[in-house]
């Protein structure tokens, strides 16, 4: 039985590792579609903003007129951002030299590439606290952003060296790391079961 047969999830595919997210959705037999224009958001139950380059994604959001529709989608529907996707969901970006314009959907302050350039990228195992249970997940930090401040009422679901790296507020989930590069769907299942389903019940 496919528990996800009623839902369809979009993956913002302006640039980045959208294909990795699509592959994970397909592992779970979730209907999915790429979102490149506002009209592709219609009737979706949730959206994933992938990793990639936030400067590029931000510019393309503006150039192809997606900003207002993404913001209004994120006010009611489930959205999960990974790495660059998390930067796009943030309320504020520190030292925003390249002028990335975030969607301001979750109250966190981000510093881009704050774990360091590519030679400092790493993979590790994290403990995610999901629904009161501690679950292990592989996590890749690739030129990863740091969460510098977490707003009140924003839940911290995982830390790395005592720093928040996975946060949630209502229908918005944001991770500074990638789980989509592997076949481990722990975090995706959490997103679908807790953020997407809850909203549609």
């Amino acid at each position, binding site marked *: 039985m496919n528990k996800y047969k009623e839902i369809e999830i979009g993956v913002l595919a302006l640039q980045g590792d959208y294909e990795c997210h699509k592959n994970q959705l397909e592992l779970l037999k979730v209907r999915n579609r790429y979102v490149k224009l506002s009209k592709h958001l219609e009737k979706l139950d949730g959206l994933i903003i992938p990793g990639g380059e936030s400067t590029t994604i931000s*510019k393309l959001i503006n150039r192809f007129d997606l900003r207002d529709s993404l913001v209004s989608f994120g006010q009611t529907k489930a959205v999960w951002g990974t790495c660059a996707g998390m930067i796009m969901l943030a309320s504020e970006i520190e030292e925003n030299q390249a002028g990335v314009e975030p969607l301001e959907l979750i109250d966190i302050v981000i510093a881009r590439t704050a774990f360091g350039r590519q030679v400092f990228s790493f*993979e590790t195992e994290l403990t995610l606290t999901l629904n009161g249970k501690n679950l292990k997940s592989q996590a890749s930090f690739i030129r990863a952003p740091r969460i510098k401040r977490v707003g009140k009422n924003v839940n911290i679901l995982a830390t790395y060296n005592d720093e928040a790296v996975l946060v949630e507020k209502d229908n918005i989930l944001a991770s500074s790391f990638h789980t989509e590069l592997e076949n481990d769907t722990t975090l995706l299942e959490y997103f679908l079961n807790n953020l997407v389903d809850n909203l549609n019940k």
Partner: protein
Amino acid sequence: MIDYSNKEYKVKVGLAEMLKGGVIMDVINPEQAKIAEDAGATAVMALERVPSDIRSDGGVARMSDPDMIEGIKKIVTIPVMAKCRIGHISEARILESLEVDFIDESEVLTPADDVYHINKWNYKVPFVCGCRNLGEALRRIAEGAAMIRTKGEAGTGDVSHAVKHLREINSIMKSLTIMSDEELFGIAKNYQVSIDLVHTVAKTGKLPVPNFAAGGVATPADAALCMELGAEAVFVGSGIFKADNPSKRAKAIVAATTHWQDYTIVTDASRGLGEAMKGIQASDIPDEELLQTR
């Protein structure tokens, strides 16, 4: 045996994944790097001369000055790549110590070693290498490359050789998926690569690392064509800053790469760009002057 699932290798391929669907632009100074970033480039390739100038100037083409690379690193927040000569271990070590995000072991520069490529497993920084066919691609992956790009014929503004290389690689990969084990052993033998790597391609019909296009891309339509033929992102060398209106053209190529299936957008992106780089027909270049055979 090589372990493609080691953590360091996975984060190298991971960065290549993050660059998919984007455009990586050659730049020769911080001003160009800023134009590229503003246009929506996912990364810049810092080099002293674009390939068309390397071609016309002649002489030995080498790694760029570290000061120039650092100047570019300071001005943009997107990943910065740089080229080293094929087999030039020391240039690669210098680029690694400069903390560039990707090294292109590139046929555009004058090769330093006509037998060996760099053992790319020995580095923290990921490498991209060019190829003309599946054999070259798999040998570079066996040496540790985390991204493959077509060679095309750099600095010509003629996309035909990138097309040829994309077509060639994809059609062979497709045929691998239906080959018997005996035939796959034959392929491994011909290509001088491990049977494991050949099996990986045979199982998926794809390279185990991202596969980008490069060489001669000059217009939004060229970029869309590469994506149409299965490239997962596009490098643009001389095509932007050797054209009339680099900023406008750069934006247009980014738009066409993202929306390559939406021809109203590719069409709009193609309007009013001014002169493209003049270029040279790749078929007019004598064999001994081709960069792709390096």
